[in-house]
């Protein structure tokens, strides 16, 4: 888990007490503020919106063509006043409005603190998950964990390796999604019977490899690195390394593990140690799950 707070919100106010924004300005502002990680509300009516009405502690910057006359709501609010700051953007161009917003943003406690992390992490479809713990056993980066009653959950999203969907490939139930993945069903698209059959076959292949994919990958990586160290010519060595990594990637192609992740795998001892810890955590979670199930049956 990363935080439990909202970032400041921009409200583009086009209600009765402000002139409408120019069409092109509105569209460009919306797009640019969203790209900068700011949530934006377009407010035309007095209808309470999610945040504007319900969260008095959320910081909001209310921008509009007020022409020097701020809406009644700006002066009527009491405890809400500290949460909303009104600014007149009449006559300002896109860059000037964005500068104003950044200035306002710098003055408040923004949980993101300007730092942004590409949110790539597994999302579990609990309607399919059978809690088999294969994902927990497989992941070397502690992304997965279990609740006190032994239910699998994603606990450390930011530990996940960007663009690596490998855990979804070992899931026998096609229950792990990566919403930003390029194709279905991993991206959340509906699952066909062919998808289920294909994923089951991959798990069988994994079992044929002795269930220790990482050992195989590490071994091949070590061989590639050994060949690389023997090369004296830098250019040739670089090409050789690239060739080896490509070969390694093609070997592990079904897993779609990015080259960067393969290249950064820890030593064999560390892999074995991490894999053993993960296996123990999975077994512990399964035992807790069985106990919880037994307790509920006895009630």
């Amino acid at each position, binding site marked *: *888990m*990363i*935080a*439990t*707070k*909202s970032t400041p919100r921009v409200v583009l106010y086009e209600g009765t007490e402000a002139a409408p924004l120019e*069409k092109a300005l*509105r*569209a460009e502002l*919306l*797009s640019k503020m*969203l790209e*900068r*990680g*700011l*949530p*934006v*509300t*377009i*407010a*035309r009516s007095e*209808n309470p*919106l*999610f*945040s504007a009405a319900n*969260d008095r502690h*959320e910081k909001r910057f209310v921008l509009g063509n007020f022409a020097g006359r701020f809406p009644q709501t700006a002066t009527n609010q009491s405890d809400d006043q500290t949460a909303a700051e009104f600014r007149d953007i009449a006559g300002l161009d896109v860059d000037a409005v964005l500068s104003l917003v950044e200035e306002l943003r710098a003055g408040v406690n923004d949980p*993101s603190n300007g730092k*942004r*992390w*590409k*949110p790539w*992490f597994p*999302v*579990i*479809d*609990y*309607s399919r998950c059978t809690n088999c713990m294969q994902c927990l056993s497989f992941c070397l980066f502690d992304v997965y*964990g*279990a*609740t*006190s*009653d*032994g*239910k699998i*959950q*994603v*606990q450390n999203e*930011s530990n996940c390796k960007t663009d690596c969907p490998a855990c979804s490939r070992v899931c026998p139930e096609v229950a792990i*999604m990566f*919403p*930003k*993945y*390029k194709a279905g069903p991993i*991206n*959340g*698209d*509906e699952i066909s019977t062919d998808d289920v059959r294909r994923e089951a076959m991959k798990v069988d292949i994994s079992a044929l490899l002795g269930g220790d994919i990482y050992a195989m990958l590490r071994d091949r990586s070590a061989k590639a690195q050994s060949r690389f160290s023997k090369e004296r010519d830098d250019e040739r060595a670089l090409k050789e390394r690239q060739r080896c990594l490509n070969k390694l990637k093609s070997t592990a192609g079904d897993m779609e593990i990015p080259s960067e992740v393969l290249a950064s795998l820890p030593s064999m001892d560390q892999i074995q140690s991490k894999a053993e810890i993960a296996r123990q955590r999975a077994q*512990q979670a399964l035992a*807790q799950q069985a106990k919880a199930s037994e307790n509920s049956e006895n009630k």
Partner: protein
Amino acid sequence: MTDQPRILYCHCAFAQVIPKDVKQGVLERLGDAGVDFECVPDLCEMSANRDPILQQIAENPNVRIAACYPRAVQGLFVAAGHPLPQPGPEIINMRVLNAEETAAALLRPRDELPAETNVYAEAEPIETANTAGDRT
């Protein structure tokens, strides 16, 4: 006060999976329609951050969400500890619809049937990662 569903738009800011022209086209059409709407940079990011706004959305079934695959969106709310109600918000998939289709689905009158049935995963509420005290 109208009971027209509120609109939530996800910009999927960190990936190229939703075409830029679709996102821009939807924003322009919503802007031109004269309605209130909420835009968030990235629902995945909000889920990972356990953003409180997700709870507010989950408590309001009268919402239309423009984002990606319904199964993924459902999963993101479950992961944040705030499963969407069933039946709940209509999820409009910008990965498969173009800007015009998305905007039409978002803006159609409440009682008008959708052009295409949206499929929801039956996400079972579950203890989630924000119940830190229960972790093993």
